[in-house]
């Protein structure tokens, strides 16, 4: 039987293994059934345990009634003790099975919860950079953090509903066999009682939704204040944003209060109806006792059952509510899980040649084997698109499609909006696939990147773009994420990137902790650690996009020299316009309007290409000074 945390290898198996069957994402119901099927023995066991847990409420009132009739009223101590012993036994059995049921409920809940989280992580691993293109990060995360809990809740309520259904039927049998009239009243009244609050539920839910919306706005205001706190304390605006927050806080308070008033109404109605029901039951029961159809003990049993019957019915309603919520969550989960990577590995993949130039056919850009090539362009977007192509990445030219259709959109409009989103996402997916299937247009040693396996491309060509991210962990993990380096290699990488000061600044050196995304380091420090990591990877082909944009001129000069030195003999492409890099290049390619228009060394290009001069001297911002200084020097 499964235990938590479950072993999952859906979508992605570690160590290059074959992933297990993907979930059924055809419909929401099928998806939920798939989730439940994963652990049906656990759910079944939970249900079985629950039946014993329910023994005291099922039989307690009956036993007490019999004790009154056969023990207390006739004054038979023997009988009283017998029934009391039975009641104690039932109570103890209930307690023991209560613990077992609780243990199993935790298990089934957490299998669903952790299982969903693991599936999301694996989906992200399987999709790679394509996932953030299609779906906003927040929605991916909320499947793991919020929807997973709804699936857990569904398994729990399912098991509980089954046990309560059995309890309801048993009690129905007991009461009907005692008194048909009262039994029928009990069976009809319970659903009526729970249903009585139903008309109030809708307005309550509407208000709760408003409250939730305002509360989440409030949270994002607070996060916004914290995010901009340096500005608020540095430049000012505390009063304005403090009062904006207070206003929103008051709106949230009002929404909470108006939802609370409906909640109070529902509770009051519950008190009223269940009270009236008890009175009705007692009134009828007493009449039957008077007419001799019922014993006093049986009447007392009925009072006990009257109190109990509300629980199964409440459970049934709870089941309906949680099923609805799980269905909504299933839609969000399917939106993530049904996505497929666009890459279809060639049926007959070729190997990537060990030698040869890297060629981009679209621009005509060529990086010769073993050389440091620098790409210069006045438009940074052009060079980053070129870098994406060189590494076989889909460019980030699309906005991810959100599932969230906004508040207040309901019914047909909501369905239409969702269908539109779905179509839009399908269109992007189809376009990605189309793009991935076609000839890629970048060749290494004459072989197009689409003809080889993607893992092969990733192993050979490393693109470190400006969005490269650091992960929480030690500095050692950051520079050597695979644990492949020895200490000297790691030290060398830090030196090349001139990031020794990061080592020095972190308490604990290599074991110093970096926060998530390297937060806590300055932009320049982050950039240099990223560079050290890229250098340490020792990729045969390395593409660096603006590797020193946040670094000062002194450091940049040092880095450019060291990178050129350490990469000597291996193909390296750097995109930058900084003169401190340019004179280390073996070759410089000027890209304009997506075409390689000129190439040569820095000196050649300064002399020959007016366009190059314009782009590069713009970076120096000293039009005409170059010659002057050159002449003086």
């Amino acid at each position, binding site marked *: 039987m499964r235990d938590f*945390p479950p072993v999952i290898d859906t979508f*992605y198996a570690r160590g290059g293994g074959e992933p297990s069957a993907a979930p059924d994402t055809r419909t929401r119901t099928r998806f939920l059934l798939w989730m439940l099927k994963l652990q049906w023995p656990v759910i079944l066991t939970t249900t079985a345990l629950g039946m014993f847990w329910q023994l005291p409420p099922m039989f307690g009132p009956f036993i007490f009634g019999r004790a009154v009739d056969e023990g*207390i009223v006739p004054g038979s*101590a023997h009988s009283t003790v017998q029934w*009391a012993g039975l*009641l*104690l036994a039932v109570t103890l059995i209930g*307690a023991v099975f209560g*613990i077992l049921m609780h*243990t199993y409920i935790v298990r089934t809940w957490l299998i669903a919860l952790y299982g969903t989280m*693991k599936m999301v*992580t694996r989906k992200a*691993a*399987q999709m790679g950079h394509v996932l*953030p293109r299609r779906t906003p990060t927040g929605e991916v*995360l909320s499947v793991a953090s919020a929807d997973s809990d709804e699936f857990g809740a569904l398994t729990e309520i399912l098991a509980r509903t089954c046990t309560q259904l059995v309890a309801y039927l048993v009690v129905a049998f007991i009461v009907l066999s005692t008194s048909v009239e009262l039994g029928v009243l009990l069976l009809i009244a319970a659903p009526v009682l729970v249903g009585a609050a139903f008309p109030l539920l809708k307005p309550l839910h509407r208000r709760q939704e408003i409250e939730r919306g305002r509360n989440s706005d409030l949270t994002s205001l607070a996060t916004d204040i*914290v*995010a*901009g*706190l340096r*500005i608020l304390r*540095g430049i*000012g*605006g505390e009063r304005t*944003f403090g009062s904006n*927050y*207070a206003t929103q*806080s008051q709106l*949230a*308070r009002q929404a909470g*209060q108006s939802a*609370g008033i409906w909640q*109070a*109404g529902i509770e*009051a109605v519950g*008190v*009223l109806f269940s*009270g009236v029901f008890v009175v009705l039951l*007692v009134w009828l029961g007493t009449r039957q006792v008077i007419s001799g159809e019922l014993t006093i003990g049986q*009447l*007392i049993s009925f009072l*006990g059952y009257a*109190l109990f019957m509300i629980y199964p019915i409440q459970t049934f309603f709870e089941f309906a509510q949680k099923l609805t919520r799980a269905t909504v969550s299933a839609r969000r989960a399917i939106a993530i899980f049904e996505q497929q990577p666009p890459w279809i590995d060639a049926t007959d993949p070729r190997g990537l040649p060990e030698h040869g130039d890297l060629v981009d056919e679209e621009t005509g850009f060529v990086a010769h084997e073993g050389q440091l090539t620098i790409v210069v362009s006045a438009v*940074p977007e052009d060079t980053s698109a070129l870098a994406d192509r060189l590494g076989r990445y889909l460019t980030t030219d699309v906005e991810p499609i959100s599932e969230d259709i906004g508040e207040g959109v309901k019914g047909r409009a909501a369905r239409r909006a969702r269908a539109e989103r779905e179509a839009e996402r399908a269109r992007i997916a189809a376009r990605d696939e189309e793009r991935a299937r076609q000839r890629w247009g970048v060749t290494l040693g004459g072989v197009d990147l689409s003809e080889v396996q993607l*893992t092969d491309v990733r192993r050979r060509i490393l693109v470190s773009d400006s969005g490269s*991210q650091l*992960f929480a962990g030690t500095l050692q993990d950051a520079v050597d*994420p*695979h644990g492949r380096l020895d*200490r000297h290699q790691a030290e060398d990488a830090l030196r090349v990137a001139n990031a020794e000061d990061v080592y020095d600044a972190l308490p604990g050196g*290599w*074991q*110093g902790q970096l*926060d*998530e995304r390297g937060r806590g380091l300055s932009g320049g420090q982050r950039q240099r650690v990223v560079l050290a990591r890229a250098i340490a990877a020792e990729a045969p082909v390395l593409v660096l996009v603006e590797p020193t944009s946040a*670094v*000062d*001129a002194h450091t940049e000069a040092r880095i450019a020299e060291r990178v050129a030195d350490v990469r000597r003999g291996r193909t390296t492409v750097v995109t930058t316009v900084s003169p401190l890099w340019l004179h280390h290049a073996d070759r410089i390619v000027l890209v304009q309007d997506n075409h390689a228009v000129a190439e040569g060394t820095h000196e050649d290009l300064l002399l020959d290409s007016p366009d190059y001069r314009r782009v590069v001297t713009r970076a*120096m911002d*000293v039009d005409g000074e170059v010659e002057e200084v050159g002449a003086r020097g």
Partner: protein
Amino acid sequence: MVDLLATSPDTWRDRAADAPVIPQELIPPREGSFTDRVRALRRRHALRERRALENYAQSRKPERGWPVADNRAVLAFFRTLLRERRRVFVALVVLNGLAAATGLVVPRLLGSLINETVAGDAESSLNSLALLIVGVVCAQALLTFVAQRTSTIFGQDLLSSAREYIVRTILALPLGRVESASSGDLVTRVTRDVGTMSRSVQYGVPMAIISSLTVVLSVIAMLLNSVMLAVPSLMVIGLAFPQVRRYLQRAPKGYINEGATYSRINSTLTETVEGARTVEALGLADRRVQAGDDDIDISAQAERYTMTLRNLLFAVIDVAFNAPRVVTLLVGAYGYAQGWVSLGQITAAVLYVEALSGPLDRLVGEVDRLQVGAASTSRLLGIAEVPADRIAGTELPDGPELVGEDLRFAYREGHDVLHGVDLRLSTGERLAIVGPSGSGKSTLGRLLSGINGPRTGTVTVGGVELVDLPLETLRTEVALVTQEHHVFKGSVRDNIILAREDSGDDAVWDALRAVGAAEWVERFPTGLDTQLGSGNQPLTPAQAQQVALARLIIADPHTLVLDEATSLIDPRTARTLEGSMSALLEGRTVVAIAHRLHTAHDADRIAVVIDGRIVELGSHHELVSRPDGEYAALWRAWTS
């Protein structure tokens, strides 16, 4: 030069030898006798407890991040809040007491009905008694409504005051700390801790009050019904007390630890998804999946700890809260036989005992929730304990001249990053500061803009020390310009008027015109009232930067310190913003911490900072012509 990597051999670690995230002792044995297994479970539980306590202790004494207040501060905070709304609080107690009391009348009436039935004279009084119960039930329903409504109003009011206080505190944090500390911890506090506090304030406080009222009144009602029937039952219930206390001492720490494991799962996954491209590029997918699974393993251990805690609690209370039924039956039978109690009293006693277990369970749960809430609240109140970094004087600057003398500064004690820097700015000049990273030039910028006070020496404007100025004045004298072009959630106006919050619309439009932003703002149908920030009207990066520049136009300081490493100017938008930037710099003294040499070239004077000292100071032409000069060497590399 010092080898910064000198300690590398000591801190480098062979990770192949790393211990697994879950120690072997925490994995249950596959075989063994029942007693062996129970013993193993006890050992695991003890170990899980130790791990939970360690994590909890760490969350109370963060190595990095903001301080945490103690429990006394939390109590004092809520006491003040309660005192402010004493009348609602009294109403809450009275109304809920009345609602609970009316509810307790019904079992008594049912008991007397049983008595009359037994006596055989129920027929005459049945209808009137039934009507009386209906009346009581109606009263109870009405009181429940009013009482619950009061609870909601009270809880929501308490909550809104508490969270507004927290945000006010955050907005008053000392400038120096805000600039240096990472905001991650603060974000967690305003999201997760405020959420936890909300749940406990909004529901926990009123529910705890209601449950304890119900329990107390039930006990009274039981005693009034029959002391003989009540006392044995209450004693049995009382037996659970030590175990409940044990549980309540441990559970909150367990839940806080559990919550922390979930936020760790979340942040690891966030990194994996946001860094998807990096993960793919470096082939880190296996590692990230492993990291996620490790987090889940740790979280599962935290869950197992609280699960066992609950099981230990349930083992006792499930018996202690249900056994009174049996006790009532036995004692009742004996008393009935002796003629001490009636059947009606027995019935009422059973109904009371049944009704008591609900509020008792809830009370345990609410105390649990309150403790977890209190832990979050103490983290929130910790923010208020950050000591102020300056006390504003009353003296106002006489003139705009900025002078730094003998400046030294250390982030860590004993590690000065500036070693006695002197710098005098002439009004209206452009000074560029260049130097390698770590040389102290950014620190110098922070001292010159009054973000931090120097360890020794002074920075004065018009003869008054910057750190003696009230912030409102400081902001209109010197401003540090960083790359943070954060666009706030709020109107265009709110986003601009920061430094002078009473600015009129004309001033806002003037500022927008100066930076060339008026045109696109005019195109918004709602003009200055247009809501910006995440989820609202989106801005291009260039527009966001114009907003940031317009803020400075409103602030109108005579001196600007530009930290260019992180400067406003994004290379992608540089061209479009040149005009806006020069409008801002016009007529002001400018200190530019230059990372691009063209900035230095254009400056009136250049200060070269190396290892915390100004080693060269002069104009571009002066410095370039020094044959061995640092600046000259750099310039040659730049332009050759």
